């Protein structure tokens, strides 16, 4: 999965590394700022009532 992604990225190792980390960063950002805020109120933990 990550191997084939790595192979599909263009450029040499430094460029690939940069692109790879950028993709990971985008995925993490989407999770943190979009998916998690949507999901959090739907998880029934820490409900005082």
């Amino acid at each position, binding site marked *: *999965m990550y191997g084939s992604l790595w192979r599909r990225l263009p450029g040499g190792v430094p460029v690939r590394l940069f692109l790879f980390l950028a993709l990971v960063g985008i995925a993490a950002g989407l*999770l*943190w700022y979009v998916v998690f805020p949507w999901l959090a*109120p739907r*998880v029934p*933990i*820490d*409900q*005082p*009532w």
Partner: protein
Amino acid sequence: MRAAIRFVSELGITAGVVLLMFCAYLLWGTGSYTEEHQRVLQRQFEQEIQRSVHEHKGKRTLGAIKLGGAVALIRIPRLGADYKYAVVEGVDAEHLREGPGHYPGTAMPGEIGNFVVSGHRTTYLAPFNRIGELNRGDEIVVDTREARYTYRVTEKEVVLPTRLDVVAPVPGHPAERPTRALITLTTCNPKYSAAERLIVHGLLADREKRRA
């Protein structure tokens, strides 16, 4: 075969990392939402206090209470000099995300009866994280537009979520008529769980009207 196993394990590791991130988000990420709303609520409420002091001298009316609006500022000196939260009206998830919530229908601050406030224990800034540290006699200071009410802690208890009588006007005796002004703080117990409720009761000790 090898490729398939690798794919599945990479997927599993990814899912684990995402779950850990979600836990981190619940504990620390949700706080920024509450912080933002608290900043606005506290500023508005403090301005309203100023206004009510200057505008109506003599005739002070309780401002219209609407769900989601601030009803009071709560301070607990035992939990730090800067421990201060705006209490919003309502205890639905959307209200508690913004701060501790006043249980609608229970007494207002200073009134005879039970002023019930619920708050998160571990997420959304975790306003009631440390209320278990309160001891008998500790102050809970509640500022409204009209006055400052100081309650003193009388009792702490851990109950099951079904024990709704702890928020009755006379805690534990739902049928009785109240004669005293109480405060009740409720939150989850143990931490990171919703299996029980931690309850702190207090009794009104002092009331100080605002003067212009």
